[in-house]
């Protein structure tokens, strides 16, 4: 078991003929993920790495059958149209890899998804991997097995790089991951830490969840609330990054679009909320394996 994706997940890539779309396609095939179709308007009839390309999502679904996940790999200003196409086709999970989408477009995508009961992951999400089962997005690059291994630890991070970094730390200390999810670092994201904790709660393969938190936003506070309400009962280990920025003026923007000093909750408030709810806050990044050992 795992969350969001598994061996039987059927995947479509929008923008499959682009440079990163093509690269993602070959990585998915290498990982034996069921990539059944691609879409690029005007390129219907072509093939990318044995995967048939269609002009539209609807056309792809008619020919290739049901789709569980669509991965959006198009330029930022075209992302809204692509995502809305997948949402109106009611593909259950729309993964948006694209970075730098204007926040208004994101809000409109998420509003449409909510109406249709579609889950959006991202934008700016590196993807998801359930080691040994399947992956979506560009997580793990061409060689995911170098870093990711099957196991009992669920992993959540806004940052793609930190997904790999955490997985490597967990793998080299003798543990493995059930599912690793990059939620993306934008101001608004379709799937939050709290949403994923609900999924991990129901996943028997997951015994503990590790998250990489950041300065800005409220995702850690929302997660703490969920734990307090008793909706997530497994051990939750969080590392928070960006302490250096606490002394910078309010509104200073860092690498992630959502990493804004003073936005909604500061570090102290996050730590207090998490600890108050019974979550484990790791002081040092390298402490995480020992904390996992204690929790399992």
């Amino acid at each position, binding site marked *: 078991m795992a969350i969001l994706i598994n061996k039987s997940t059927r995947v479509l890539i929008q923008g499959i003929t682009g440079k990163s779309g093509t690269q993602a396609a070959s990585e998915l095939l290498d990982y034996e993920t069921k990539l059944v179709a691609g879409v690029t308007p005007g390129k219907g009839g072509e093939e990318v790495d044995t995967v048939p390309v269609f002009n539209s999502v609807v056309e792809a679904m008619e020919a290739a059958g049901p789709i569980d996940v669509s991965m959006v790999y198009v330029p930022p200003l075209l992302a809204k149209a692509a995502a809305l196409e997948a949402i109106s086709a009611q593909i259950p999970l729309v993964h948006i890899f694209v970075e730098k989408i*204007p*926040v*208004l477009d994101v809000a409109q995508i998420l*509003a449409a998804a909510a109406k249709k009961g579609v889950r959006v992951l991202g934008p700016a999400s590196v993807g998801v991997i359930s080691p040994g089962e399947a992956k979506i997005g560009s997580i793990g690059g061409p060689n995911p097995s170098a870093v990711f291994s099957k196991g009992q630890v669920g992993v959540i991070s806004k940052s793609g790089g930190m997904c790999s970094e955490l997985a490597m730390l967990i793998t080299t200390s003798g543990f493995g991951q059930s599912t690793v999810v990059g939620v993306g670092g934008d101001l608004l994201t379709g799937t939050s830490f709290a949403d994923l904790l609900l999924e991990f709660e129901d996943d028997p393969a997951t015994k503990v969840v590790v998250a990489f938190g950041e300065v800005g936003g409220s995702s850690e506070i929302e997660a703490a609330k969920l734990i307090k309400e008793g909706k997530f009962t497994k051990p939750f280990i969080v590392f928070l990054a960006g302490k250096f920025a606490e002394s910078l003026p309010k509104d*200073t923007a860092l690498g992630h679009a959502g990493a804004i000093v003073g936005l909604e909750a500061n570090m102290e408030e996050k730590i207090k909320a998490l600890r108050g709810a019974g979550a484990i806050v790791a002081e040092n*990044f390298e402490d995480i394996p020992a904390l996992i050992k204690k929790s399992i």
Partner: protein
Amino acid sequence: MKLFEFEGHKVLASAGIESPAFIVCETAAQVKAARTKLKFPVVAKVQVLSGGRGKAGGVQVCSREAGLLEFAKEFLGKEFPPRLARSSGEAGHGEKVKYILLAQKASFEAEYYVSITYDTALRKPFLMFSEKGGMEIEEVARQNPEEVIKIYIDPVAGPAKGDFKKFPVSFEFATKLWEAFSKNDCRLLEINPLAKTEGGKFLALDAKVILDDNGLGRHEDFDFIPKGAITAAPSERELAAKKIDEGDYRGSAGSAFLDLAGDIAILASGGGASLLVMDSVAAAGGKPANYTEYSGNPSREKVEKLTRIALSRPRLSGCLVAGAVANFTDIYETLAGFADGLKSVKPKVSYPIVVRRGGPRQEEAYKMLKTLAKREGFDIHLFGPQTPISAAAREMVELSEKYKSKSKSKV
């Protein structure tokens, strides 16, 4: 990008929201000329990006020309707020006042607070309102939370008429506000205070606007003054770094660049890992000369440009190139960009360089850097993904301390 108040009024005007007549001045001569076009009393306001301007004395009502000139003399060209002016040149928190705004004083019968921004937990835009115009909304929320009213907005349809029945702000005005917010790709639009005149007209007596950087690409008509990451006046390095990503959305390099007061140049990778890198350097007792990050598989050229900018600071004592294990960023290409940048820096770099990376083509990249170090005599220390970022940061700080004491003993 945060805007000056006078720029914010432009954003409001684009949707037909009025402000009292105002003139922006950069010199005392301009103040003199402006005075003849405005009726007294006139409100003089320093134009800075930091908040709490009124409390710090940056807003004054003047009833004579002498008062205006005195105001101009007191603030123009000086650091604001005045009590922070001591540390100019540092990664400063005081701002040099380049503009003052002179506005006709408006008469009104009520003052409100109104803003639109995004709720990141509910993932929706919302309008926030309070009857306590002129007071900071955080303050109102602390004292009387029930006085802060939130109205959520459908990001496709805009404000709903039913939400504004019997509301001090009309539906028509809310619609204009939403238009200004959405058409200009704002992240925050705040009018505090918003005045209601006796005739029932709304006037924006202030304007705080933060634009969504991701939306700037579709507004080539914007002519707002470039801003720095922390200060109103961007440093040359911040400006140059921002330019790298313009016109090429593939991968970012330098979109976030902060000039800081330390002596260790930072080239971090990844939105999340870059925070860990900075925290680790600080925890090891080091002082970063900057914050920046590149990620999303940027081209070799982008990383080369960013390297040149990061290494352009005089008297550096080290350079840390660090990031997490990359998923899809080509480590060889990006580190080749670093090498290109490093080679071009004059005078030749003699301080220690610590590299900690992992991911696609990392081994090939390290081989290339080893050869470069040997051939050109650079002091490069390479660490693979098995070395924690924090350990690499500690190594960097130690090497930089050694380098500093060695250079001192030479002098």
